[in-house]
């Protein structure tokens, strides 16, 4: 009996000892798992199945935010459409923007595609730049470092463990990157079009040229006029690949593919869950 009691006590203390980390998207979540190891319990709020701009603010997410010790968000305006009201009614002072348990990853990222002027008449333009940086595999390094720094700040007694986890993960990631770089060499200067400017960081990293988007303006559904222009563009520039994300409608892409002979490649924008 005593043994059981002891074990449950140990177990509960162990559960309580873990740091509850909520991340808005899955890549951040995966990196947090690697850096935090067994010391953290990671919850991903926005599924990689859905458009990151339009995560449904389900009340069940409130109970997740209510208990979090650390909230890691993407930033750059990507969560503007769903996170603020949740954060406001989760009644958790630990993860407010002014608190120690809040990490806006965008502060550690060099943004590209910064608009010179911002107006809603240009569609869903983000003032800070393109927020879809998680498609660049090198960004994972910055993410891991920032998360290690934050975890060590929240839980200084385990600083060494986070440091070890980080070193180990970065080594693994370096090996992965090397392999990926060799693979990607063949893609140099390839021409593609995409649905939304979702893969710009990835394309820039591997010198792949993007010649246009299926949506006429960010966040605006495709129009027939724009699609026809795009078909001409594809034919003229001899573009072979259409990068399609997992969450937008796929009809327009397959229509364009049919008209031009280009191939549709469905590419995830976050780590698949």
């Amino acid at each position, binding site marked *: 009996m005593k043994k059981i009691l002891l074990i449950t006590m140990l177990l509960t203390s162990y559960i309580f000892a873990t740091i509850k980390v909520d991340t808005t998207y899955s890549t951040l979540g995966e990196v947090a798992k690697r850096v935090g190891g067994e010391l953290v319990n990671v919850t991903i709020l926005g599924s990689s199945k859905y458009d990151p701009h339009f995560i449904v603010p389900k009340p069940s997410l409130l109970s997740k935010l209510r208990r979090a010790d650390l909230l890691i968000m993407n930033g750059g305006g990507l969560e503007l459409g769903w996170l603020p009201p949740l954060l406001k009614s989760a009644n958790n002072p630990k993860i407010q923007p002014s608190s120690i348990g809040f990490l806006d990853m965008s502060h550690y990222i060099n943004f590209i595609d910064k608009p010179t002027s911002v107006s*809603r008449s240009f569609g869903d333009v983000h003032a800070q730049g393109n927020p879809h940086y998680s498609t660049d595999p090198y960004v994972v390094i910055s993410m891991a470092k920032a998360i290690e720094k934050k975890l060590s700040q929240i839980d200084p007694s385990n600083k060494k463990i986070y440091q070890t986890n980080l070193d180990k993960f970065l080594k693994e990631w370096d090996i992965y990157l090397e392999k990926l770089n060799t693979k990607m060499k063949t893609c140099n200067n390839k021409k593609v079009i995409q649905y939304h400017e979702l893969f710009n960081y990835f394309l820039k990293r591997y010198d792949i040229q993007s010649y246009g988007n299926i949506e006429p303006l960010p966040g605006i559904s495709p129009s027939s006029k724009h699609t026809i222009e795009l078909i001409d563009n594809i034919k003229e520039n001899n573009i072979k690949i259409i990068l399609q994300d997992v969450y937008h409608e796929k009809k327009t892409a397959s229509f364009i593919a049919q008209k031009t002979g280009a191939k549709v490649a469905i590419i995830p924008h976050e780590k698949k869950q």
Partner: protein
Amino acid sequence: MKKIIGLSCILISSVFANQQLDDMKEIIKQQQLRLELLEKKIEINEESKFAKNQDASSSFSQKAYLPDIAFIANMSALARDVENEKYSNYAIDGFINKAGEIPFNKKRGFNLNYGEMEISSSVDPYFDIDAALHIEKEGLHIGELYITTRALPYGLRLKSGKFKSEFGRINSKHQHSWDFSAIPLLFEAYFGAGGLGDEGLQLQYTPPIDTFVQLGFEAMQGGNGRSFGDTDKNNLNIVYLKSSFDLNDEISLLYGGTWMSGKNRDGDTDIYGGDLTIKYIIDSYSSLSWQSELLYRDKDIENETLKQAGLYSEVVFDIDQNWATGVRYDTLFKNIDNQPDDLNRYTAMLQYKPFEFSKIRLQYTYDKSKSFAGKREDIQEIMLGFTIESGAHGAHSF
């Protein structure tokens, strides 16, 4: 022989050394040139700084602290088979003797319903402020103005000011985020076309458990004349409980209960009821939701207690990013003696959103709940409404 070798060795090495020295000299020379160039550049930069007039326009700039300001506008074109003059005097038998203010879609023809300024900002690490100011033709009207705490411990949050009660589902939402352009009949009958908003204090508690549960307590003045109206002191107390769970990734359930107790000019008013919402998320842009609310009311007048009840139930299908459609059934199914208990209304809508921040809605209403000078009359209405949300507009909740 040895000597010769030795000498030639020295010679060769010295020649090579000379060569190296020359190389070094050349490098140093080049670097010196570069240094000079850089120094010049720095000098020019420094000079230009002084040459230019200092731009002092941002020395005391507080732009970064400006609150988020959004401007919302709503307008409509309307066809109704009742004349305007007659319509403005409608009654709902047993509930409303005479229509009060009709804030939205009042007239046949064109309606500029309102402009609304929504202002929200963090005050400091401890408080947020939110305001919704209605700009109407008659003047400015404070829809909401409240302060919310952001750093209370134990899952508590305090709200104070004038605000829409957060009980149930629809009451705390603003007209621009409703799925149908009129408030449910039940709410119109109990609280008026704007719902229940009042001056008061709210304490909300969210326990730290896996299932979402939220408990709210509101103390209000009781200024809503339809159900309460005795404002001699703060006379209205509201308690609500909300809970939600996900059946799976796609299906969410949200349900809650409400109890409110207040005073009208003749006696007590108690209202109690519940709500249920089921949302099926098909993909990022498409979902199907079914939402219903039911409220009973016991209202004392003179020597009797009026026992009344009603509900609404609506199904809204968000087809894609642009299109949505929905139907709503409204009924006041329980009424006082000698008054009708089949006060129903049917509404259907089709909505097109060119972009997130603008929305065009076509709505048809068949209303069997109104009477004119003691005679019940069915009303049909077709409305084409237009809503825009511009500026720094916050996201809508679930």
